[in-house]
């Protein structure tokens, strides 16, 4: 690929979620960025001299100063009058971000630099051999928080860096997971469109450190969201503006059992501990409104201001199924859209899975995209509640 900004040939482990995350981020940023990278796996597996995986200007200095180096880059671009054309990204692992680099990150936020900080959260110090960090989750086993007769591993929950960022009045703060690449990339793009400090924290599985099958990187990154353990959030100006809702939360053990770092919990003794982890997930679901509620609110909002006059009953809608010369309509959040013009909806069928003539509100959450794809289609009415 000519436009490749993060190249193959890097030396990450097979199935590395961080390599995946970095590639997705770079696809979203495009070429006009400068990156300041902290020490850690990402730096090591991309920059073994004389090779580099990076297709954008990139600098690494130390473990704890990526945010400060980026501040210098940004200041230099500003004085050169180039900050309009070039965006600055600072990035590092969870250790670089939440522990040793916390002060320099705080400084970067506080000074209001026009920088997007990306934290690749693999929940431990991987590059030095899987030690505990401030973002290591509760009861997970690392080499410095081992499980033993008197321990279930890390005794503390994750530091809440997004809220720490919010406390700095960071303009845009979001979490993401590599299992939802479009959402991740949308957030990176949105962040880069905002001038000032931004923070995105990305969940990136580490097969080596978490001791999971490398083929499960994607599934694990998905399950962590579906259990509620890693809420996917978006804040603007400190206000929660979106959450990724969960249809029916999966029990946490479905997520935990895939990873060796939690293997010690699957014993008689560990039952209570799994219950505590479930409580963390339940707490997130409640705190951030990850369940239906969120959606109901959305639905209500849409229903309150019917944009078009025509009111469809379910029966009326079902006739508009795109077949036999009928128009192809579907309903979403109370609105009815005309999708007849789309090749992707020929004969009212979308990817053999979804069909016109129906209320597809709930189905959209399973789609690889959000409602932004409707923009070019006309709403022709509302669905009768």
């Amino acid at each position, binding site marked *: 690929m000519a436009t490749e900004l993060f190249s193959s040939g890097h030396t990450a482990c097979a199935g590395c979620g961080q390599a995946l995350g970095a590639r997705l981020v770079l696809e979203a940023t495009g070429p006009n960025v400068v990156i300041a990278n902290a020490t850690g796996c990402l730096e090591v597996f991309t920059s073994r001299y004389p*090779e580099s995986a990076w297709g954008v200007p990139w600098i690494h200095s130390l473990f704890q100063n990526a945010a400060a180096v980026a501040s210098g880059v940004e200041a230099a671009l500003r004085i050169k009058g180039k900050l309009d054309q070039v965006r600055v990204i600072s990035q590092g692992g969870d250790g670089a971000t939440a522990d040793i680099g916390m002060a320099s990150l705080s400084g970067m936020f506080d000074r209001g630099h026009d920088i997007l900080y990306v934290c690749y959260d693999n929940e431990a110090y991987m590059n030095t051999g899987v030690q505990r960090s401030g973002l290591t989750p509760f009861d997970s086993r690392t080499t410095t928080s081992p499980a033993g007769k008197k321990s279930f591993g890390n005794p503390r929950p994750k530091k809440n860096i997004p809220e720490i960022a919010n406390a700095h009045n960071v303009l845009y703060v979001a979490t993401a997971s590599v299992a939802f690449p479009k959402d991740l990339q949308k957030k990176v793009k949105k962040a880069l469109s905002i001038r000032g400090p931004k923070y995105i924290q990305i969940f990136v599985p580490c097969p080596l450190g978490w001791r999971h099958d490398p083929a499960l990187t994607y599934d694990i990154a998905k399950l962590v969201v579906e259990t509620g353990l890693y809420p996917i959030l978006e804040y603007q100006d400190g206000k929660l503006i979106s959450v990724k809702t969960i249809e029916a939360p999966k029990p946490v053990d479905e997520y935990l059992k895939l990873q060796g770092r939690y293997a010690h919990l699957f014993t008689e003794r560990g039952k209570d501990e799994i219950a505590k982890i479930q409580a963390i997930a339940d707490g997130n679901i409640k705190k951030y409104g990850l369940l239906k509620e969120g959606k109901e609110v959305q639905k209500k909002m849409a229903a309150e201001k019917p944009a078009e006059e025509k009111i469809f009953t379910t029966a009326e809608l079902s006739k508009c199924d795109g077949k036999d010369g009928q128009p192809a309509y579907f309903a979403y959040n109370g609105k009815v859209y005309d999708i007849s013009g789309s090749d992707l909806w020929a004969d009212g069928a979308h990817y053999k899975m979804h069909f016109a003539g129906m209320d597809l509100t709930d189905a959209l959450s399973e789609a690889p995209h959000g409602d932004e794809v409707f923009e070019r289609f006309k709403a022709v009415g509302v669905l009768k509640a």
Partner: protein
Amino acid sequence: MIIPVTSKPRTSKANKTGTWRSGKKPHFIQKECIACRLCVMVCPEGCISGDKRCTYIADFKYCKGCGNCAAVCPVADIEMVKEEWWRETIS
């Protein structure tokens, strides 16, 4: 005296990580493919390419055989196969 301490962009391509695969590689069956690009999106090596249905393929010079592409393919059009004959495909 100045010697380069910088690297040129995208030079990691010189590093053929395909040699890392141990025993498994993705086989793109190319029958059911619906061109959803999910495999392209999740490959940590960024080594899958293709555009239309049933054109997707991994570049085995770089594929590490992690198996995520096969795991995500919604139509099970990628399977992980044992490889005995694979080394030849790395140029």
